[in-house]
């Protein structure tokens, strides 16, 4: 089919053609970036932080009065929690993934050498920490039982001793590049000397989406009490309901003046943590859908108008021997042409918009793959939208067309 008749017709409808091109360009620019935003959010939503999240339960307990035996009660709680049917392991840890608080500490390689500081998530937990959180030791060893102490002792005396420390692989690679971190010395809390005894594959930050999160984390052998820590239990998902109920009963039995302030599955905490991202992804999806619909209707409206306006031309062509297929293709090619120009302009717009979003909202650059995806979506949309008016045009009998 020759393009020339299409072009000469379009030249007579410059404004309308330009508007449809502009609409397609705007739509494709927005759709590409919206798809990318969905992609960014989905990446967060589906991220694996390396913990057996499906098996973990969190129980937070708070006191309502002064308690001189918080460490003793914590030990009793844990002993009974570990004995519950279905509980594989249990630990008391100062902070949990997707939790409400985050403790961080600054580490240096040399004493009082402050230029190079590494901010790391500071976990402290009891003997059950590694097993319960499913942390994998990739070098060195875990703390020995005699190396643990009570966090309350550190708080009460203000005297910080930390002869051994376990760190995450990301922190080990950053602080001691190209070498074995085990056995190396680092300084925590400004000036407390400590020897790295073990490296753990991954320890996620409690707020994994936090900007600048590099996966740096340390594990300290300080047992928190129920007042400052969370109980983390590991059990098969099928037994979660029963375990949570039994755990609340244990807390009540050990000391009924305390309140279970929060209890739940880590999967629920994850859903709540990412709720905003999920809502945003849905919203973007809705906007893409609405944009595509509006654009499609615009194409249908304009194409219908053109078909109506060119009835005489179509009739003449049909009378001169053009087949229905040729009339159909005429409108399809015309639409492809307009979409094509719109898409090319739209891709440039998408890149410009992406640069703007990068500077304003610290988003990653638009991956090029989104461009052909958006282009194809818009082209297909145009073809579907133009199909009905084009078929109507093709169905025009030559006689009826000539009569009008």
């Amino acid at each position, binding site marked *: 089919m020759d393009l020339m008749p299409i072009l000469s017709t379009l030249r007579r409808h410059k*404004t*309308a053609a330009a*508007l449809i091109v502009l609409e397609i360009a*705007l739509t494709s620019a927005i759709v590409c970036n919206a798809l990318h935003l969905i992609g960014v959010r989905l990446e967060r939503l589906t991220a694996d932080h390396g913990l057996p999240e499906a098996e973990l339960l969190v129980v937070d307990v708070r006191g*309502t009065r002064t308690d001189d035996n918080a460490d003793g009660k914590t030990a009793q709680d844990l002993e009974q929690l570990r004995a519950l049917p279905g509980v594989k392991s249990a630990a008391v840890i100062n902070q949990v993934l997707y939790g409400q608080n985050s403790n961080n500490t600054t580490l240096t390689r040399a004493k009082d050498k402050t230029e190079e500081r590494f901010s790391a998530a500071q976990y402290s937990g009891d003997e059950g920490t590694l097993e319960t959180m499913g942390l994998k030791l990739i070098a060195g060893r875990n703390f020995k039982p005699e190396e643990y102490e009570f966090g309350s002792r550190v708080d009460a005396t203000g005297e910080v001793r930390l002869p051994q420390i376990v760190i995450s692989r990301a922190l080990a690679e950053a602080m001691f590049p190209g070498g074995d971190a085990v056995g190396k010395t680092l300084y925590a809390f400004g000036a407390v000397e400590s020897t790295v005894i073990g490296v753990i594959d991954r320890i996620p930050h409690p707020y994994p989406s936090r900007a600048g999160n590099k996966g740096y984390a340390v594990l300290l052998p300080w047992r928190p009490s129920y007042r400052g820590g969370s109980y983390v239990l590991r059990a098969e998902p099928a037994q979660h309901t029963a375990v949570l109920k039994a755990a609340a009963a244990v807390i009540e039995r050990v000391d009924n003046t305390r309140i279970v*302030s929060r209890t739940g599955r880590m999967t629920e905490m994850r859903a709540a943590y990412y709720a905003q991202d999920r*809502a945003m992804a849905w919203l973007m999806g809705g906007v893409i859908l*609405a944009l595509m619909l509006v654009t499609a209707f615009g194409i249908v409206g304009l194409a219908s108008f053109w078909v109506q306006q060119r009835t005489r031309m179509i009739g003449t062509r049909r009378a001169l021997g053009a087949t229905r297929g040729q009339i159909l293709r005429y409108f399809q090619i015309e639409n492809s042409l307009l979409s094509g120009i719109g898409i090319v302009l739209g891709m440039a717009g998408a890149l410009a918009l992406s640069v703007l979003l990068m500077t304003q909202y610290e988003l990653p650059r638009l991956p090029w793959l989104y461009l052909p995806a958006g282009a194809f979506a818009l082209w297909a949309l145009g073809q579907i939208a133009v199909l009905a008016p084009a078929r109507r045009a093709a169905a025009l009998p030559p006689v009826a067309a000539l009569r009008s």
Partner: protein
Amino acid sequence: MLAYYFDLALRSFRSSRALSLLMVLALGLGIGACMTTLTVFHVLSGDPIPGKSARLVNVQLDASGMGGFKPGQEPQFQLTRFDAEALLRDKRARRQALMSGSNMAVLPESPNLKPFYASTRQTSADFFAMFEVPFKFGAGWDAQADDSAARVAVLSRELNDKLFGGENSVGRNVRLREQDFRVIGVLADWRPVPHFYDTTMGDYAPAEDLYIPFATARALKYGSSGNMDCWASPGPDGALSLNAACAWVQYWAELDSPGQAGDYKRYLEQYSEDQRKAGRFKRPVNVRARNVVEWLVYQEALPGDVKLQVWLAFGFLLVCLTNTVGLLLAKTLRRSGEIGVRRALGATKSAIFAQFVVEAGALGLAGGVLGLGLAWCGLWLVRQSPADYAPLAQLDAPMLALSFGLALLASVLAGLLPAWHAARVTPAQQLKTQ
């Protein structure tokens, strides 16, 4: 004349229902999306304390050690307890208050209620007057109560409902941990948006349920929650002790006028210089006294997602408008014959132009009504979302007016190009082809 144009517009709608409906739908969607996002933006970026926001300043001092020091850095955004108490003693502004968030265990008298935790603000006397907190019963405490670490408490309306069934509870006791506190005031409903005076508890958190003197909380060794930054080991007395090298206290001052900010800043610089000389401050003098609006901008209180949504909605509206222009143009050109007849019968070019602009405006009104309905649905959806600002997403009168203004403006703008084309139609040629 206008009435006649309206009549013509209605006739034109009737003659091409599908196309008109399509345009109204597209406009309505665009307006609805814009109104929804703009309303959320408007609510969240509002002034939490209008009339006073330029006179209320948040104080920042750079009390940190030299570790990680870079010139030109922002100072700590909270104060150490030592500095906050020193500034409070100086009383250099009309009103001033130090404060920190916490959670207090409340042990109700009623056996039907289990012990629970209430969000608490530990603060000083001027808090209530400075932030114009409304009272339902009683009043706040005075400076003497701060000095004597009195066991007094102010309850929110909700907490008073929960504990005392909404009665006037002034004079009664509320048990916090092991101590009885005397209720001296109950607040009326109060929710500053954003939660400007302490953004570490969530930018859009509701106001606290319980208010007790900061001095009392320290005397009874109560804890604190929120953000804490320590640059040296706090020592055996803990991070909340007077001399701990930890920043965790918020400090606000009310000035007589916005112009006094310079003087107040100089006072803070003098204070910092004195602390440097005394060896307490290590870093060069670096202070901030931001008013409420500046403070909220610095704290980036407005969520980035909300701004992004506004941009997205306007992009969407732009597409809808382009769409409307295209369809209106098609519709207008289809009526070239009619225009030719009107022109031949004596209508001027400007009359034709006006007629088509009015028609576009009428479309805009219909789109505005639809958009309003859609915005109402959209805001309902926002209220179902998990964000802490969700319950605040309500349509108000200014936004209602704005939505109609926007709809009318957008549609008239969209109508200009087709109307111009319509006015250019030459009657002779049209009459000839008929």
